[in-house]
């Protein structure tokens, strides 16, 4: 079979990504799975392994009292944060799509946190209290919320208010994605709807939302993955702590990471099935 020149060029162009993926994603994945099946020691003369089967996976659930606790907290948090971020991103994207003065400037401002507030910078900003709203009194909000909700839920909402700035900072990429799709919507559709007497509100529900629905799914997935991998996520911190813990180590931490990845995958599947594009039923 003769390989076409265009095919070769194609592979050539994606080869940097392929090499990166194989070396920096696939190989570490295989390694971490192998680690998770072993008790591992990092001696000065090399790594030592003692096969443990799936005991590390069992220990994650049975011995680490923080994992389940943090996992439940995380699921509760994302059930609120993911919709907040995506809805906020959509609103801002629609505003940025309007023809206003300094449009480019506004777009830059909303995307800036993605570039500036990453990694250690965000850690510093959080530790210096730059991401909280000084006017918002957490205790007052909590006391009001507890009148309507049980304490565990009130705390989650209270935390949402407390970290609202940082949550909104996380929406830069989503805004960009929404903006791209909003610009693709044919303006004639709106024009035709307006001629037929459709209001802006109706245009949003009948034209905008159905058109961007697949992108909402992408943004939901992106946001969930982003929050799941965030350095601010306590589970990531827990995995890191276990990695260097004396009696647990890389094997245990790898098992925890795999369990966590599995749960995130299940959540992603749920989101996918809820928001996927359903094929229209054939008219008889």
């Amino acid at each position, binding site marked *: 079979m003769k390989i076409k020149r265009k095919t070769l060029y194609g592979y050539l162009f994606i080869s940097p990504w392929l090499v990166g993926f194989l070396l920096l994603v696939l190989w570490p994945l295989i390694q971490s799975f192998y680690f998770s099946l072993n008790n591992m020691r990092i001696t*000065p003369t090399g790594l030592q392994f003692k096969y443990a089967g799936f005991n590390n996976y069992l220990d994650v659930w049975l011995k680490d*009292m923080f994992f389940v606790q943090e996992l439940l907290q995380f699921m509760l948090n994302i059930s609120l944060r993911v919709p907040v971020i995506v809805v906020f991103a959509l609103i801002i994207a629609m505003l940025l799509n309007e023809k206003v003065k300094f449009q480019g400037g506004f777009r830059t401002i909303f995307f800036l946190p993605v570039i500036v507030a990453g990694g250690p910078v965000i850690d510093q900003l959080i530790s210096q209290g730059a991401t909280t709203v000084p006017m918002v009194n957490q205790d007052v909000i909590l006391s009001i919320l507890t009148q309507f909700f049980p304490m565990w839920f009130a705390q989650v909402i209270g935390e949402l208010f407390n970290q609202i700035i940082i949550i909104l900072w996380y929406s830069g990429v989503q805004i960009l994605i929404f903006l791209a799709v909003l610009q693709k919507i044919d303006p004639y559709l709106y024009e035709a709807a307006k001629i037929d007497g459709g209001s802006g509100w109706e245009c949003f529900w009948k034209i905008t939302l159905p058109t961007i629905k697949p992108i909402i799914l992408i943004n939901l997935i992106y946001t969930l993955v982003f929050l799941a991998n965030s350095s601010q996520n306590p589970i990531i911190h827990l995995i890191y702590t276990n990695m260097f*813990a004396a009696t647990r180590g890389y094997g245990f931490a790898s098992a925890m990471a795999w369990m966590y990845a599995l749960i995130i995958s299940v959540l992603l599947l749920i989101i996918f099935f809820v928001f996927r594009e359903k094929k229209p039923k054939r008219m008889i």
Partner: protein
Amino acid sequence: MRRKLSFILLSAIFFLLIAAGCSDETANEPENGEGESDNVSDEKAAAPELEAMTTEEITLSYASWANHTLNEFLAEKFMEKYPNITVEIVQLEQDGWNDHLTNLASTGDLPDVYWYMGNVDIPIRNGWLGDITAYFESDPESDDILVTMKDAGYFDGEQKLAAPAAYQPYTIYLDENLFNQLNVDMPSADWTYGEMIDLMQEMTVPEQGIYGYNTFTKLVTMAPIVNQDAYGEFGWDGEQYDLTTDWADSMNQHAEYVRSGVHAPFYDTDEAEAAFGDRLLWAASTGRIAMQLDAWWTMGLFAEPEFVDKGMKWVPYPVPQGDNAQSQHKPAFIDFGAISSATEHPREAYELLKFFGWGKDGWTAKLEAFEALENEDGSLMFKHPDGLPLINDEEIWNGLQELLPQSEYVSNFLERVKEPIALGGASHPGFQTFLDEVYFGGEYGDVEAAIINGEVNAYDISQNLTDMINQYREEALEELFW
């Protein structure tokens, strides 16, 4: 058949003799510390001489979080003493120290000599600790080490895998001016634990906003060590922990003092704001605290104008002696060092560890450094010498005392801190893991906070905690030494 049998028998006897001969030779080797237990005393009695250092050109790497300039100074001195050895100081961030060591170990770059931080389970589990038993036991200088420090580092009771490398005693600072103001006599340097507890109460004057004490170091660490003549935290007697007596007593005592206002309000709380007008103000800098339970390294800080100008005169006291104690055991921050199990030059690495840690030559060099090292602006780098010696050498202790403020308090202090007891994490397998999983992160969350808040009574849980910590130790010894 008979000839065959004879041949097999003869061969068996022949190999047996060879094997016996070989094992005999090994047992007589001076550097081998792992012999049959009955031979150990004989070997000790023979006191084999410390083997000679190499004369070849070698390089040793060293990592500790001590002052980098001091490390470089000491490295220079070591290289002057052993011109064929080059010492390279490996600089690592103190934050996440053990993680950095793990990364170095994973690439085969663990320094030849290094300090580990806090949790001894990490270097043991990962097999980083080189055995220095033979060197230590045949080194005449080992006899000079402070008596309570000699056995430190024998984690399994047989092999010496680490050694104390730096010593900062627990220190209780008393504000002499506040004592004078309240017309209360300063206690004797030989004060007892009970006297200290009474004095805390006596020095509390709510109407003047004066508090008996503030803590960095804790009563709950001190009491079991000083009152039980213990060899470790939580009443460790060399074989078992026991939290049922002094730990429980002191924990309840502290909780009661916190609730009744003998203890100063905690940092960054509403109570601190109400008391001092600033929730982020360190209680010890308010001039309204009679005793600050702290460490030796704060001595230099308390001599700063920030404290003196506010009218405070903090003077150091040793942790009081136990009420019925036979010893002078006092808790101390002891940093441990070790040689890498993979070092190609264990004998020389041991010498380097000793020089930077407890060795007399090293301490002579340190004293020189404390006097000589300067900052870029010409000011003295060590206004207050860093730590105390780990050896019982009068010359070194006197030399250090000359560098310290000439006061009776200081000389009394130095005379009474020669039986330090290391904290558990760095010196007892399983201890830190117990703290992480049970004491600070178990059923009650932070046990001490739960007791202070009145959620549990120390006496109700002390037996359970005792059982658990003893179990953690046993499991750690089994699990860690595989």
